[in-house]
């Protein structure tokens, strides 16, 4: 583990030399954990109390109550719509942005600012973006869609740009030499080299948009999250359990489907 090489005699005496820096680091981590826990007000009796409360919560969540399935289905469908729309718009915006941000295709004074925009889109958590959109354009699915579009742009435009930067420039030069314009270069030299990776990114983003769209409702941006939050506030824990199980099932299904599609593409 350590980088030190003991002499042969020393190696014979201690088969596995104790790694003191590692032990000290572990000690420091433990000390930090204890100090930080005390600062955040985490203590053993609070933990014990919480365990009791957790037991009560679980007892109230079982059995899950699927009686209001109409509400549940409505929320899930809205989440699905938000995810589909946000992915479609996000991909449509990311395609040109990715090309503009690729340093091998566009000059630095275009790629620099575009990269900055993408970085800002990526840095802010989508729930924060969703809050801002809810305040600006009102409650409902529109705010959720807009927030997830921002998140999608931050993620896929960056990956698009990175994929484009890795292409072989020979084909671009060849197509350019025939006198093709910018759009033809993109269509015949760039796109064929990156298309399969783009599809992979898009699938991944659809998957993660689906996860996130079940959540933006917590801040009022539409989808099943709103139903979940309302049920929580009304202490309808059995309905909460039903919603959580449906979300897990939906995400599980999406993961299986996207895995299949990705395997088929390969």
């Amino acid at each position, binding site marked *: 583990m350590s980088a030190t090489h003991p002499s042969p005699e020393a190696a014979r005496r201690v088969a*596995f030399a104790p790694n003191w820096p590692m032990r000290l680091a572990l000690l420091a981590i433990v000390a930090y954990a204890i100090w930080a826990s005390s600062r955040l007000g985490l203590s053993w009796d609070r933990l014990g109390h919480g365990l009791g409360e957790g037991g009560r919560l679980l007892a109230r969540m079982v059995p899950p109550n699927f009686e209001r399935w109409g509400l549940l289905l409505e929320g899930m469908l809205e989440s699905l719509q938000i995810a589909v729309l946000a992915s479609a718009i996000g991909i449509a915006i990311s395609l040109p942005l990715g090309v503009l941000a690729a340093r091998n295709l566009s000059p630095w004074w275009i790629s620099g600012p575009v990269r900055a925009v993408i970085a800002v889109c990526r840095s802010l958590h989508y729930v924060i973006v969703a809050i801002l959109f809810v305040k600006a*354009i009102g409650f409902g699915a529109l705010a959720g869609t807009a927030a997830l579009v921002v998140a999608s742009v931050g993620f896929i435009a960056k990956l698009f740009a990175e994929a484009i930067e890795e292409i072989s420039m020979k084909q671009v030069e060849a197509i350019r030499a025939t006198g093709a314009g910018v759009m033809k270069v993109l269509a015949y030299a760039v796109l064929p080299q990156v298309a399969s990776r783009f599809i992979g990114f898009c699938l991944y983003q659809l998957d993660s948009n689906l996860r996130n769209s079940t959540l933006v409702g917590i801040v009022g941006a539409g989808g099943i999250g709103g139903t979940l939050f309302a049920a929580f506030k009304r202490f309808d824990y059995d309905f909460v359990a039903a919603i959580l199980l449906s979300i897990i099932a939906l995400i599980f299904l999406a993961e299986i489907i996207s895995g299949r599609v990705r395997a088929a593409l390969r």
Partner: protein
Amino acid sequence: MNSMTSPSFGDPMAPLRREWTRHTPGQRLSRFAVWLVCVAAIVWAVRSIDIIPEFLADAPEQMADLLIRMWPPNVAHYYPEVHNALIETLHIATLGTLFCFILAVPLALMAARNICPIKPLNVVAQFSLVASRSVNSLVWALLFVAIFGPGAAAGVFAIAFRSVGFVGKLLSEALEETNHGPREALRAAGASWGAEMLKGVWPQVQPAFWGIALFRWDINVRESAVLGLVGAGGIGLVLDDAINFFQWDRVSTVLLAILAVVLVAEIIVTRLRSRLL
């Protein structure tokens, strides 16, 4: 991919008259079907999504109004309130990452098929990892606020339980890729199970382990910034307050603080990773 149509044998000129197409009819049909499904999904979403046209119409105006109110950010709000909340957020992220390993390491060992040969245990571990990953950290935070009451404790546990699935999955994949040789040698020398893990497996997964831990810490810094929205402590609480009081210059201060911390965390992680790996 390439196929030719109209193959006529016997004619010596046939190879010159072959017509090349990029895809077989079957491929073309399936590609068309995929496009059709995509378009149908989008059309369905656009037609049935519940969007209020008036909201859509004045959205740009409203956004501009919001941004104007946010500018300039009022830096006077930064100290002490935002600063302390920021420190608390970092503590939540770090403690959550540390605590997640208490659950993630045993689950990863159980989920790795070469370490734990018992099939039902593999399945149980895999399922718990998937369940942990499927529930978002905000939802975990809601649950833990109901358990521990509002405060940073709920945030730490939410981050920890959300991270278990991610860390456990990556760690079990790293464990499954380890070479069996060192373990066998240790076992032949009479080493106990613990020694076998510590000296035979740990050195092999160590680089992956640190990489995963750093990566997850980076994500957790981002996620812990929003936990306060459901009452689980950290800077989200300050943000929520500021939004509810419509103090938009304070909101922009908080947002800039979050942005700065996230960027600094990303830079630290990138530096550490390039030094470690």
